[in-house]
């Protein structure tokens, strides 16, 4: 299994939107490496023919009726917002593009 580098940790932090410090990069690189080393053990028994389990209960087809239910008022929706304006959540300027 690959050793995880400081650069990889920086990349992960970026993907996960965590502005980690230089010090954290060092600490996490060591710890993640240690943990990944231990958990890589799963591949020992994960043979090709074993189906993966994504859900603990074997349920299928759980659907809802297409019926409107009362939700939140605008006031309730915005009550926890760090900032709001004109009935909307106010956020700092967005740099990136929509996907």
């Amino acid at each position, binding site marked *: 299994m690959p050793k995880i580098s400081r650069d990889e940790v920086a990349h992960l932090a970026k*993907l996960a*939107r965590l502005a980690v410090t230089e010090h954290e990069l060092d600490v996490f690189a060591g710890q993640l490496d240690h943990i990944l080393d231990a958990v890589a053990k799963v591949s020992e028994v994960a043979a090709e023919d074993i189906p993966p389990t*994504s*859900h603990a*209960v074997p*349920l*299928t*087809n*759980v*659907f*809802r*009726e*297409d*019926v*409107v*239910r009362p*939700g*939140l*008022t*605008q006031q309730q*929706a*915005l009550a926890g917002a760090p900032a709001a*304006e*004109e*009935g*909307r*959540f*106010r*956020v*700092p*300027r*967005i*740099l*990136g*593009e*929509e*996907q």
Partner: protein
Amino acid sequence: MTAVADLMDYAEVLERFDPVLGLEVHVELNTDTKMFCGCANLFGGEPNTHVCPTCLGLPGSLPVVNGKAVESAIRIGLALNCEIASWCRFARKNYFYPDMPKNFQTSQYDEPIAFNGYLDVTLDDGEVVRVHIERAHMEEDTGKSLHVGGATGRIHGAEHSLLDYNRAGVPLIEIVTKPIVGTGDRAPEVARAYVTALRDLLRALDVSDVRMDQGSLRCDANVSLMPKGASEFGTRTETKNVNSLRSVERAVRYEMTRQAAVLAAGGHVTQETRHFQEADGSTSSGRTKETAEDYRYFPEPDLVPMAPSAEWIEQLRATLPEMPAVRRDRIRVEWELTAEELRDLFNSGAVELVEATVAAGAKPGEARGWWVNFLAQEANTREAELTALPITPKQVARVIELVGSGELTNKLAREVVKGVLAGEGEPDEVVEKRGLKVVSDDSALLAAVDAALAAQPDVADKIRGGKVQAAGAIVGAVMKATKGQADAKRVRELILQRVAEQ
């Protein structure tokens, strides 16, 4: 704005390259509620009023799938001749964006509900192109952001943004084609025709409002070029959110000429998303694939798998309406239309009205004539939709019937229709009120004929001398005298009969 790109002449593009298309269409379903919660699925409204813990992504909230949305997805899949998955799941597509409340989109990844289908698309000249469908999958829409400050409404230069999550969680179906090859110079037309055909199909299924202007139908166009004779696809670009049928055609054409110029100059096409500029029909560079996110898809643990039974699928298949392409073909054959007439009929948006008029007893040709010509003009004058005119197919059929029985002339019939449009009542009432009945009393007509012949003896002589066409002048005089309420055909008969007698 970046410098204007070099473009290659379109004819030259086609001499040197073969275009390859791929179209991704997002459709907002017209269900009553959102994909995963019971909030109303409504366009617009006061901001953040159709929201709940689930579609706001509040901590602890959970999704539950809207069964109606799954039905719509399966019906779309069936209408697109797709296979329906016997087992499939939702997945999480992980990326951060402020208009996405959970910072993952609940979507389908490698297990779409429908896959491997096709849609036959008819071009303007009647040629049919089969577009193969890769997949149709379910997902949810995002909220909307409003950028405040700086250039109006644009993301660049904005000081801050305002978020409204009314649209967040609205059910979306994404329909993706397989690469469309071999269309040559008609690639832009095929792109437009495909989106048009898809729109008509979705409308017939009644699963979406399919309003491109409101964003309930959105198209992303993938275009690449390969040198003539090559078999390997070139690098593609994806032009996002092209929001009208005409724009689809323009965007594809623009990308073909732009990419050709890049390739001809020895450059490489960058794999990127591009934005269509409505104003000048160009596309501009967006996000490149190098900086693209790693979406880290994994099966959505909060939702259980879907396993539509064969029985359920067959029940849904039974609800499918006649497919637009099949219907087009049936109408062409039944009504004996040329390709051009068929196109005009469909372009007029009068098909349903004509069908209803025919169903009310009118002949197809006459029904079509009324709607596509006279009534279309009336609608145009009033700047109204044809369907919004205050006249019913049944009323039109009655007018046609009155003409057929000789009770109205075509000219009078138009008066009657105008009367109906003016709210004067049923056609028969208009005839009555306006006194528009054809003068069918021969004695009254004969008096008028005699008077006209007497007034123009030279014409009478010409007729007698064998110049039958000269009777037109007498017909005109009689019609004038009867204020047009006579049947011209009968008048002509009487003239010839009278002249022969004299």
